[in-house]
């Protein structure tokens, strides 16, 4: 039970932190911010990895875990790279000034 209450505290504090993180966003950054936040939501990779480890030699579970890892990593890697591509274009201009 203590693990549950601890987890709920973590949930609560994490949510409060998240609410505070984003304030006023300049319009230029709306699209990159959305794609960056989206990349972070791929943090589910952690669950996929845990599932794979937990599966032992149970093949169906290993397959599901690997599939889920693939989907999550697609989200993470694609998301971060594409965000970087967008932001790099803003950076280039700032430097040339």
């Amino acid at each position, binding site marked *: 039970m203590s693990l549950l209450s601890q987890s709920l505290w973590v*949930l609560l504090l994490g949510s409060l932190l*998240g609410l505070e993180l984003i304030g006023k966003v300049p*319009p230029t950054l709306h699209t990159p911010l959305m794609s960056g936040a989206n990349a972070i939501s791929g943090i589910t990779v952690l669950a996929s990895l845990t599932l794979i480890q937990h599966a032992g030699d149970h093949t169906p579970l290993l397959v599901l875990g690997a599939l889920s890892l693939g989907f999550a990593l697609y989200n993470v890697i*694609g998301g971060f790279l594409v965000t970087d591509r967008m932001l790099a274009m803003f950076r280039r201009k700032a430097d040339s000034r």
Partner: protein
Amino acid sequence: MTFSMDFFAGAIDLAAVLLLALGIKGLSKVRSARGANGLAALAMGLAVLGLLIEIRPDPIAWLWIAAGTAAGGLAGLLTARRVPMTAMPETVALFNGCGGMASLLVAIGVALFDAGDADIVALVSIAVSVFVGAITFSGSIVAMAKLQGWLDTPGWTQSRLRHGVNISLAVLCLVAAVLLPGDPGGLPLWLLVGGSTLLGIGVTLPIGGADMPVVISLLNSYSGVAAAAAGFVVGSQLLIVAGAMVGAAGLILTQVMCTAMNRSLVSVLFGGALGASGGAVGGGGSEAGYTRITSCSAEECAMALEQAERVVFVPGYGLAVAQAQHSLRELAKLLEAHGVEVSYAIHPVAGRMPGHMNVLLAEADVPYEQLLEMDLVNPEFPRTDVVIVLGANDVVNPQAKNDPTSPLYGMPVLEVDQARQVFVVKRSLGAGYAGINNALFEMPQTAMVFGDAKAVLNGLLTELRSLGVGKAKVAA
């Protein structure tokens, strides 16, 4: 030894959470954004490293981890490299859907094969994870298909019946979720998977394409919730905190998007598509309703430009679709060389999602200070000689200001009708997203230049050069 290793893993987790928070925070400032994105990526890497140290996968697990990593990583790399900047909204939707799918698969896996020692908390978490994960997945895929133009907003989805259908689906999901702990791998699980998937489709399908950015942002928030739920399923505090953070930040971001588009979340989610009510979907190139249209050639437009002292470009969706941002930049350079004062008026929702046009123009190397936001540029229109509207429609419709019966009424628009002369570059007289006529097109100072934005811009370039504008450029 084990103690110190666990301690080490715990420290890495803490560092990951801290960096993740700093990353999200930094992403909302122009100067720090790129670094912050890298920081968040580093945090993600640390989190994975910390977990791998903690669980110490055996060789079989490593094999499957490698397989999943190779497939997902490579696909992500290729997509991120290849996708054009114009297709950014649907790409984000696709990525987001995959994140939801990942949470869904984890929950299904645990429910089917690993629920033996699951307590009630884990079982409830499985239900939540399946529900949110499936909605995120199907909703995101529908959003992507709409943005790609693969899916329309069918008229029948606009009837009030849809609320009844969606409520029934939600009730079905609730019943299945309540029954699930009694029989984790059985029928309730599949009812929940099916019901949530359909609910995701049922909620997203009636929403018009113009509102999709809000939907994607909301679904992004959901995928954070799905991740946090998956954290409860596998018992990972790091996942819970990161998921909660993204979920909450996503809600704020959704609010920011709504404000930028002057829409309320409730009207986006339950109001149906703008102008598509009652089964009569607008748009689709109907030319009915316009009586006083003046059209002109690129040549006439070029002559007006050559005489102008101050020109404002209003880029919109049509410019993004035609990939004409580079031609536009070239035309602007030519005019600047001729001594014309050039700027770009950026409506908050210009392009295909808030801030999208800024990205596209940045790609074409347009100087940042020439991009004027709506509040800054509106007072400038009365002293502007020529406005060229490139594939924008609803965001320049004066009805939003002066026709209380218009569905657009109240939406902040660019007041281009105040300028001396307006050229509207458009492929046809088809309606915009809102599906209504644009009073601007019939005003005496407005002329239509029909054609694809890129073709028209290149035509203007040729005409201007033959008029002797920017001689040095011609010699080059």
